[in-house]
């Protein structure tokens, strides 16, 4: 199926992505929800809102309508800094340092659980 609309014969399959308008909408926020006490906040999605108060209100309405969380954070998306995958190549190589892992060491069975 789909909610995808079929392309009628003779119609272009290309979809327009912009109206060319310069107008900026409300800023984007990233939403983090703590599902229950004892665990960390987890990224759950994003939304648009004019200010932090309405971002929090919208986050509650959009992401926690069925008790999915006991606490919500919103963070302006432009304040999130991240490794780009290319720059992170050396970071991934950390996996090669197996001596950092507990499983890299043989302990005789006689010693028991360690």
């Amino acid at each position, binding site marked *: *199926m789909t909610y995808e*609309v079929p392309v009628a014969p003779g119609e272009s399959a290309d979809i327009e992505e912009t109206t060319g308008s310069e107008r900026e909408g409300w800023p984007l926020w990233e939403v983090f929800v703590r599902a229950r006490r004892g665990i960390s906040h987890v990224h759950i999605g994003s939304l648009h809102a004019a200010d932090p108060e309405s971002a929090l209100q919208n986050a509650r309405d959009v992401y926690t*309508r069925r008790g999915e969380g006991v606490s919500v954070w919103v963070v302006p998306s432009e304040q999130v800094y991240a490794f780009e995958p290319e720059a992170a190549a050396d970071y991934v190589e950390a996996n090669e340092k197996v001596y950092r892992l507990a499983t890299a060491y043989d302990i005789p069975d006689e010693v028991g659980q360690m």
Partner: protein
Amino acid sequence: MTTPEEKFQALIDAEEKVEPPDWMPEGYRKNLIRQIAQHAHSEIIGMQPEGNWISRAPTLHRKAILMAKVQDEAGHGLYLYSAAETLGVKRDEMQELLHQGKHKYSSIFNYPTLSWADMGAIGWLVDGAAITNQVMLTRCSYGPYARAMVRICKEESFHQRQGYEILIRLCQGTSEQKEMAQDALDRWWWPSLMMFGPHDSESTHTEQSMEWKIKRVSNDDLRQQFVDMTVPQAEYLGLEIPDPELRWNPERGHYDFGEIDWEEFWRVVKGNGPMNRERLEHKVRAWEEGTWVREAAAAHAAKKAARAA
């Protein structure tokens, strides 16, 4: 040294997810924008046929359920717009492209909701068909779309069950109520089957979408799944599916069913269904009437930020 194309293909082959900062072929990106935007628009326009019955729901309980469902549809639209935005399109721009008729939404919402039984039929059939599709999409190769689908599927289950329950009650009621339920099934059955799109042999997007693992099951296979699942449910209600060719085929292990009226299908896709014009006009009006709210909120935020500075 692996090329970005090889890296991308390796992710797809390994059943891993492609995530927003990853390199992706332009065709993959465009295909996703098209599909996710149309899906988002469908959720938003889909609020109208049911919104039509909020003020006329038969009990306060049914009214509360219907409002919760329509609110969910708005939420689904928002999850999906967010997913589309990770591909570099803006939400407000998607809205405007929809208003200008340059973006489309599912044809199913271009049919009118004439009786209360339609609220039952929509939940049972339209949301049922949507679930069949969306469960598949939780395995889509693009991470943000797949994640949005997981949330949506959980909520759609409520939608389908509440719809079916409406029909159970009507079918247990007076003969007029049961006729109402039958009439709703008569009108919604074929449009629901049309939701799965053209035959695989006619579908322009299917092959590439399957290769990229955006789509995991073909239109015809999903349609068959839906029919097989739905026929016994209609039998339980004691309603008759309006298809004289519908019968169990023991050799195939599936129900055989009749051919869709493809002329009607394309007529509605091309904008000439019973409600196309009204749905879009209503959407544009709501957006225009909300302009002052968007502007006031932005002005208020700017004033507060200036005071804090």
